[in-house]
């Protein structure tokens, strides 16, 4: 299996914590060597996903937690945003994940107007798992130029 570091952050499902997560991602992305522009893109993308999760959590119960996972790889950063407080079972999430479809339970992203559109525009790959709550998995590669970025390599069995 490809080696990577995993960082998990859990915050209350409240809008005031979105800025805190932006600071986390800017720290991680900066350490990895992302450019200033890429870091700004990452900040917007993660905020869009968390804004969606906050709205979702609020609609359900008015409280709750959001879990954010950062997969730090040699060549890319994978970000998971889950609208529930449980920890990630990486294997399970990746098994069920796929490109977002029209019928997925992501109406908040659409209602929010440009949220999902921006995530899609700013990240290299976006997938949604809506089996247990909604999990947004998005990937940004360290070097935009070059080949082999179709992302299929992670599905190769060990």
């Amino acid at each position, binding site marked *: 299996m490809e080696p990577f570091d995993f960082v998990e952050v859990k915050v209350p499902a409240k*809008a*005031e914590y*979105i*800025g*805190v997560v*932006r*600071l986390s991602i800017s720290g991680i992305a900066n350490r990895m060597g992302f450019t200033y*522009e890429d870091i*700004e893109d990452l*900040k*917007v993308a993660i*905020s*869009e996903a*968390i*804004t969606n999760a*906050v*709205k979702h959590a609020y609609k359900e119960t008015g409280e709750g937690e959001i879990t954010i996972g950062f997969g730090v790889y040699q060549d890319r950063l994978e970000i998971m945003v889950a609208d529930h407080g449980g920890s990630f079972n990486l294997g399970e999430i990746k098994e069920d994940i796929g490109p977002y479809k029209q019928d997925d339970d992501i109406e908040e992203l659409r209602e*929010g*107007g*440009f*949220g999902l*559109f*921006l995530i899609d*525009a700013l990240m290299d790959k976006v997938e949604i798992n809506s089996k247990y709550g909604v999990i947004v998995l998005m990937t940004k590669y360290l070097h935009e130029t070059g080949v082999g970025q179709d992302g299929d390599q992670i599905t190769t069995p060990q």
Partner: protein
Amino acid sequence: MNLSIDVTNNEGVSNVVLTGEVDAFTAPKLKDTLLPLTKEKGQVVEVDFQDVNYMDSTGLGVFISALKSTKEHESEMRLVHMQDRVYRLFKITGLTEIINIESTVQGGM
């Protein structure tokens, strides 16, 4: 990680100076301040973005609402001194076509 909003009014022009970040937390406050200003016929609302260092779709939503309100109430809105990074979001969402924006570095992206 906060947003301060300073409004000064003189002779039909409201100057709104924003400092900080516009996100899901601060956007409601911005909307509450901005929308009433657009409801006066003939009013010009100028929003200064010089010190806005972060904005996302929640901010775009506020300015779309404000634009709609200006059409409805025959007022006017312009966004000035916008930084590159923020301008880019208006650009990729196509909003530069419908909102009057002066960026500090026009069309860098």
